């Protein structure tokens, strides 16, 4: 992918995502890239960022070199401010205490719907995937940042199965379905940063990473992408950002 000798695709995702988080926000983060990105943001520009894990952890203390292996085990709770029941931590999303949900998926479509349940027909799937977990809840109840590797088989016109609802069928269909808050905000890939058109809710390229062409993004996307009129180019990961990432994940569990 974007491995250019300086950083891996995963490192690029983590750095680019981290820059989208603001100080003082509360972020519901999955393990892996989301957690790393949130931790990086805390170190770089958002010291007052609060991280939540689906297992029930509020404001844990991430120690360099001791990244939790998943979001439901005791390692996630290390020196946390609070642990809650898993139902109650998800209800924080519904009550509105969370600013950003941060996750990935196996497939995403032009309206930001995510699939992590079935490849193929749900009644006769090629692959039964592990399923939604809290993904559907997070996507239904808050603004979403999605971090994914940019591949044609992942960026599809219509996902095989809507596990986590994005803008559903576009336009105002998400709100009409009953999801009156939240929705996909940004999609961060190893090629670009994408948003969504205000009206149609179709995915739109907002910025390209250094050295990536619009053509490259099109080639790796199975649907017609919109492009902003003034596409920006992102600043490459700095040495500081990469150093912090590698300090936190010295074994390259997530940034390989």
């Amino acid at each position, binding site marked *: 992918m974007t491995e250019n000798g300086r950083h891996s695709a995963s490192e690029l995702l983590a750095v680019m995502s981290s820059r989208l988080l603001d100080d003082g926000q509360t972020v519901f983060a999955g393990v892996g890239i989301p957690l790393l990105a949130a931790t990086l943001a805390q170190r770089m520009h958002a010291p007052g960022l609060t991280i939540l894990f689906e297992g029930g952890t509020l404001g844990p203390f991430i120690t360099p070199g001791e990244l939790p292996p998943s979001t439901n085990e005791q390692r996630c709770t290390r020196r946390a401010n609070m642990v809650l029941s898993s139902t109650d931590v998800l209800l924080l999303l519904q009550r509105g205490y969370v600013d950003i949900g941060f996750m990935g998926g196996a497939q995403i479509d032009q309206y930001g719907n995510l699939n992590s349940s079935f490849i193929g027909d749900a009644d006769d799937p090629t692959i039964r995937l592990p399923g939604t977990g809290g993904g559907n*809840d997070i996507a239904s109840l808050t603004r979403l940042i999605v971090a994914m590797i940019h591949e044609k088989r992942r960026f599809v016109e219509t996902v095989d199965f809507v*596990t986590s609802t994005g803008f559903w069928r576009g336009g105002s269909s998400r709100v009409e379905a009953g999801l009156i808050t939240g929705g996909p905000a940004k999609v961060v890939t190893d090629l670009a940063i994408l948003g969504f058109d205000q009206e149609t809710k179709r995915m739109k390229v907002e910025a390209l990473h250094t050295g990536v062409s619009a053509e490259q993004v099109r080639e790796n996307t199975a649907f017609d992408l919109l492009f902003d009129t003034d596409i920006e180019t992102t600043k490459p990961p700095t040495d500081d950002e990469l150093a912090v990432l590698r300090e936190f994940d010295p074994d390259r569990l997530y940034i390989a």
Partner: protein
Amino acid sequence: MTKSYIDLRSATEMRDRSLRDKVMSLGEAAALIADRDHVALGGCTLSRTPMAMVWALIRAGKKELSISRSITSTEGDLLYGSGASRHILTSWFSQGIVWGVSKVMRHYTENKLARFEEWSHMAIGLRYRAGAMGVPFMPVRTMMGSDVGGRIDETHEMDCPFTGDRLLLVPALNPDVALIHVQRCDAYGNAQMDGLPFMDIDIAMAANKVIMTTERIVSNDQIRREPDRTKIPFITVDAVVEVPYGCAPHECYGVYEPFLPNLDYYAELTRSDPVAGVKEYLERFVHGPKNWNAYLTLLGMENVIDATVRGRSVYND
């Protein structure tokens, strides 16, 4: 699917809810579970899994159990592979992210040998909570518009009479039996829990029968000294079983972390041939040992000590 309130109340009324000694063996507790029961499992993924009771019910040859859990890991594979269950209701089902998608889950579901009924994590939690509260449903603002919601027949949408908002109503889930594992519990069933509580409290309150396994049984005096630390009251509990390392190879907060070598071994064993792999694991680790301590012996002293050192480390500050 939602139990009638009258039936729920009658069933609860008939339970012996008095303060009495409920200590028994794993085998005796397994006998409280009937074929075709809906059995809810406490904990989440690799945490506080009531593994010893799952192990005991597989050994007891239970059949056609309907299972529910917030997130399902290897215990789900074992329930499918042993034939104890062909229906698991959960939000996420695989051993754990680091081991990839479960080949056993894939084999059984893709070949339609078993059902994986998918609900969102919060919806499952609120189904238990409605059951715990004695109401037939909870309103939620999730699952709408998704195919997760679309594949489920058991929900209703309504327009809120107060705000006009569209809401999804998820039905109460009152399991026949709940299996819960805790760090400490007295002989009557008053349970203390450290760390992440997951959905265990709601599950226990919702169920019609609770089997509590515990790392250790403490005195009722010790419980009464700090009544604000009791998380599940004795009135909901029907059996208490003392099982040290009762979650192995999964973890119990503050006591032991997962037994990673066994989990790696299991993942490897089921990777190429899920059916033969899970059978071999069941033979060796579930049916083979003569009791739970013999099972721990198979896991190995070194692994027990290592898991314990890591488990306790959460308190090393």
